[in-house]
């Protein structure tokens, strides 16, 4: 273990962080009146996420619209759906994976924003790259490069699986794309002369982004709402279900994967985009 340094500046920094930390933790131990953070279930009634889980958001909003009483009583008087795996068909949202249904259906717009955040960050990095000399890995070993050639297809496959199966099992476009990018990372790290044309990747990536926005606008055209699900949802839990979400997740996976790969390439080789 190398030596660590500890001086007064860091001491003050720690005090500042400590005050911030105490302040951030203090609401957890708040004993005053009013609503506090608590995981107890009786609070679940007025949480939005309850309806996400029950897949009855439309019912809930219809209920609020119809009932003329107090807003809270309207919220509480919503009946509960029975959502059954492999039985419920054409639910308001298709994926069996609850997280996916939130990420790509209830809050799909946030996801669009997040891929834009990633896009703009990589763009900013690309703008800053002014062409540094490449720093290849020294002493690459045969075992490493041979092993990598064996491993990379599997990693890619896992990545593709993660985003294609995202509507059923944990995972989705983001992790899938990240896993694909780690495959490219492995290629870069093990074989020193590995490189690719970033323009192709960028074309794929921006095309994927364009298609995502176009699909969202198609929702606006067909169902009068941006990102509305205009393809059939199928039966809950089937492989061929919730088609729009599968398409968008695959596009996101491709987009994120190529994006991160280009970013890694730029950082690793120090080359500009070509």
């Amino acid at each position: 273990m190398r030596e660590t340094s500890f001086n007064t500046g860091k001491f003050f920094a720690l005090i500042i962080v400590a005050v911030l930390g105490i302040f951030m933790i203090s609401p957890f131990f708040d004993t005053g009146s009013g609503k506090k953070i608590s995981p107890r279930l009786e609070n679940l009634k007025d949480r939005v996420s309850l309806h996400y889980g029950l897949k009855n958001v439309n019912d809930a909003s219809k209920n609020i619209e119809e009932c003329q009483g107090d807003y809270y009583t309207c919220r509480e008087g919503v009946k509960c759906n029975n959502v059954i795996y492999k039985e419920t068909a054409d639910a308001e949202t298709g994926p069996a994976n609850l997280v996916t249904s939130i990420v790509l259906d209830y809050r799909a717009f946030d996801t669009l924003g997040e891929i834009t955040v990633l896009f703009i960050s990589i763009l900013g990095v690309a703008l800053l790259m002014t062409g540094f000399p490449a720093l290849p890995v020294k002493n690459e070993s045969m075992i490493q490069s041979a092993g990598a050639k064996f491993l990379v297809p599997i990693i890619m496959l896992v990545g593709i699986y993660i985003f294609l199966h995202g509507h059923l099992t944990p995972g989705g476009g983001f992790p899938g794309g990240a896993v694909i990018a780690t495959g490219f990372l492995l290629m870069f790290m093990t074989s020193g002369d590995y490189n690719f044309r970033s323009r192709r990747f960028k074309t794929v990536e921006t095309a994927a982004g364009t298609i995502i926005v176009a699909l969202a606008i198609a929702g606006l055209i067909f169902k009068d709402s941006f990102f509305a699900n205009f393809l059939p949802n199928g039966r809950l839990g089937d492989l061929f279900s919730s088609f729009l979400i599968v398409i968008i997740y695959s596009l996101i996976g491709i987009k994120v994967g190529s994006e991160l790969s280009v970013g890694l390439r730029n950082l690793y080789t120090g080359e500009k985009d070509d």
Partner: protein
Amino acid sequence: MLLLIMFIFLFILIFLSALFAVLAKDLLFCVISLGVMSLATSIVFFILNAPDVAITEASVGAALTTAIYVFGVRRTEREEK
């Protein structure tokens, strides 16, 4: 019980690796300890029944971010002044 012990162990790991990342003079050590922190965090996520977040944290936090930091450190000096 086992879960609790594991939790405590992971939290201590997260805390120590974060502290080490702040205090260490060697930037590569900082980066690696941040990677360790991410990995431990992803295990915590997994235990807390959030496999989606766990996968993302593992691939992005532990692999990609660490790699990016390493690339960055490689282009500057390794020792903090």
